[in-house]
């Protein structure tokens, strides 16, 4: 009798929990993997396609599905670190196959040479190139993410990628601590005499 009571109680409990789980599965269902959004937020949104995916979000989806996290040259090491931390994976060096990390750059059209073909305008994922057919084009530097996608379609090769110059407003201090200030002899990269000299 007591065994029967125990079984009934357990069955009742199982039924209740099953109903709760069933309710949750329907009403708290997550349509999209939220980790994709998180990954997408980390990616630099240059939409350059160097990762071999057509934009940052497709790469984010690929990473969520298990692709490597070191395929984003514009993001560089900082992005790889952030992704590693988010996904609990190990840090991997940037895959050189997809390009190397360069500083922030923006496209610059040598306007005298521009023939107004609009090909770069169509290529730009940011709508950062202004111009019309047979009119000179120009890059809106503030909107340019430096994705390089406009370089290839240009028939007259009049687009340069120029590094962004540091101004007073975006200058920042460097990390202090040069290696030669190491006091312990074995930490030094150069002999003491040379360092002191």
């Amino acid at each position, binding site marked *: 009798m007591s065994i029967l009571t125990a079984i009934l109680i357990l069955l009742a409990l199982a039924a209740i929990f099953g109903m709760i789980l069933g309710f949750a599965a329907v009403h708290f269902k997550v349509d999209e993997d939220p980790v994709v959004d998180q990954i997408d*937020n980390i990616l630099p949104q240059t939409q350059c396609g160097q990762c071999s995916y057509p934009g940052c979000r497709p790469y984010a989806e690929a990473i969520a599905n298990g692709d490597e996290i070191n395929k984003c040259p514009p993001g560089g090491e900082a992005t790889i670190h952030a992704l590693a931390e988010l996904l609990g994976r190990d840090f991997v060096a940037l895959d050189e196959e997809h390009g190397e990390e360069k500083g922030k750059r923006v496209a610059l059209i040598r306007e005298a040479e521009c023939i107004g073909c609009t090909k770069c305008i169509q290529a730009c*994922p*940011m709508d950062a190139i202004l111009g019309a057919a047979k009119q000179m084009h120009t890059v809106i530097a503030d*909107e340019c993410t430096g994705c390089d996608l406009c370089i290839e379609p240009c028939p007259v090769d009049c687009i340069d990628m120029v590094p962004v110059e*540091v101004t007073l407003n975006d*200058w920042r201090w460097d*990390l202090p601590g040069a290696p030669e200030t190491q*006091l312990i002899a074995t930490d030094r990269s150069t002999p003491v005499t040379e360092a002191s000299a």
Partner: protein
Amino acid sequence: MNWQPNKHLHTFHGGIHPPENKDQSTQAPIEAALLPDKLVLPLQQHIGQQAKSLVQVGDNVLKGQMIAEPTGYVSAAVHAPTSGTVTAIETHALPHPSGLSERCVIIAPDGKDTWTELTPVADYQQLDKSALLQHIGNAGITGLGGAGFPTSVKLNPSEDLPINTLILNAAECEPYITADDMLMRERAEEVIQGLQIIAHILQSEQCLIGIENNKPEAIEALQHAVEALQLTEQIRVERIPVKYPSGGEKQLIQILTGKEVPNGGIPADIGIVCHNVGTAVAVYRAIAKGEPLISRITTITGDAVARQGNIEVLLGTPIEALLAHFNIQQEQLHRLIMGGPMMGFTLDSVTLPIVKATNCILAATNRELPDPAPEQACIRCGMCSEACPATLLPQQLYWFSKSREFDKALSHNLLDCIECGACSYVCPSNIPLVQYYRFAKGEIRIEEHERTSSDHARLRFEARTARLEQEEAEKEAKRQARAEAAAAAKIAKEAASDAGECGEKTAVDPKAAVVQAALDRAKARKAQKAAAAKNTADAPTADKADDAAPAMSAVERAKARKAARAAEQSSDGETADQGKKKAAKVSALEKAKTKRSQNSESPSTEGDALPSLNKAPQKTASKGLSALERAKAKRAADSDKQPAEAASTTDSSQEAKPTMTMSALEKAKAKRASAAQPEVPATVQAAPASADNETDNAAAEAKPLSALERAKLKRAQNVTDNAAESAGNKAGKSAEAGSEKPMSALERAKAKRVEAAAQSVSENTESAEPAQTTESATEKPAAAMSALERAKAKRTEKAAQQAAEDSTADTDKRD
């Protein structure tokens, strides 16, 4: 004098007591400004956006003239510190820790120091806040304490933040610097008046002047000034204990009021605004004297200069000129620092200019400020956290900054650090802690910027993708609509053709039959009508098609129309139309044919065409000439040929040409034939005349007969002509007259022939068959000319003969 700090004052956590080193520079009064060889005025001497240059190279500027205007809300104007010429606007290294170069206006002073026209405010109390702020903004005033924030912005806090306390920062806690001290000692009244103006703008209830009690002369001067201006009620001079960094804004507020500025907030959030004494003087000068900010008090100190002191220096003065003025000893100079030893930064060059925020130039010797000792490992002693005036945990921040764990640094309130350097000062391991924090702050700022820009980029990319998709969808929708329309049309067409297939067959056959029947009937009727209906000859082919239509019976026409409509509806209507057109054309051709025959008939007014053509020549040839008979036969053949096939006329006329080379008779024959040809298409009026004349001429030319016979023949011809032309046309008349006066008659005939030719040319467009008329037009003159020329000689001798013949004939007649 009471040297004890006020009992009601508060204190802040931590703080240090570095050697003051202020006495060296307070021994001499403030020196007057020196005029250097050139002034370098950076367009950005402030926090915010770079000012926009208003001058060009070569412009002459006056002292106090605005040379760069602010470009945004947080921006400040730049003015010419003295009169002179703009020699360049170029990038020049700035006195900034980055050592970056920015755009500067470079002025060569002319030495005259001529002021521009100044607009002082007579009574600032009459002006409202915005007007005063405008004035201060135009004067280019920024905070002179060191940060360089535009004063007009700081004086304009948000409306929902009422300011109840105005604090004048006169603490000047950093070692070596005495610029504010000397300013207060010498210009205390200006300081107090400036404070009054600021208090008026901010509508603050109380004013506090926070001053460290290591400046007794300045305190005394201020109190005297306050008493002299009878402002003791509103303004209170607070002596505060000497402790670094009591001059920090947040620390001074805490000392004076006990309140703390909230994390991430500004003093205005707690109803307090803090300004530097130098700024107060600048505001006073801008309002009361109209002078913009063109100079400031700067301390030149350090053991490397022989003479230490304060100087009123024009903005843009190169530091080397100042150092030279204070007798710099180059060999002694170890480090050149802008600002104080705690918060200042090392300058790489002596060519850098003095800017609005330059309160001190410290030319230190090696003994004074030795190189920092090598950095050692943090031993977690905790001295830094004891010294920190912001109650932070400096060593934690150090670890987080070094390992780039900026999130953790932020959660430890890194941004509350005022970078005072107290932690670095006390660190036994000589760790440059502040540099780590500066680095971390910069990285965080950049990361934040990158995040916002990448969000912005994502938005733009998504907007673009959405736009492209929408365009694609619109295109697709349009294409779909077109495809649907095409499919619907196709279905309709198929249905129509299915229905029309049987109908069309039945429609086509009866149509052809109807057209044929109509044509036949029309032909028959034309033949009947031809003689009577001369007037319709000129009608164009279109009318003829209409003529053909009435020829059908009403029922038949209706049938044809229905068939045509059915054909049209089934989108094959074109063939039906073409058939209709063809029918019209055929009927037109038929009509033209009958018309031609009709024209040739017309003179004889008889129904049968061919016999009538032959009639007149028959009469002329009745004199018994085989040649003429042959000509007759030929003409008949030609006229037979012409109605039969329109195209063959070309051949016949070409055939006529070779005959020219034949004998005169044959030529005459050919001529008559060619004459007959043009006559056919020619108009009603022209045809009979030319026909008659030509028969005349041909007869005259062709016959190598005796004069008598010829005369007879002619007369007979004329008579028959006259008889035939009962209508009494011109040709007949001239022929009649020609019997009396053959010369004139012949000449007239000639003229008429030419006229007829011209007429036929002009009527080319009107005639039903243009090919024929053009041929006749070309053929006729050629044939006529050669014939006429040959005939002319003959005619002259004939004339006399005819005259004789006429007389004899007359006599014969009479007889």
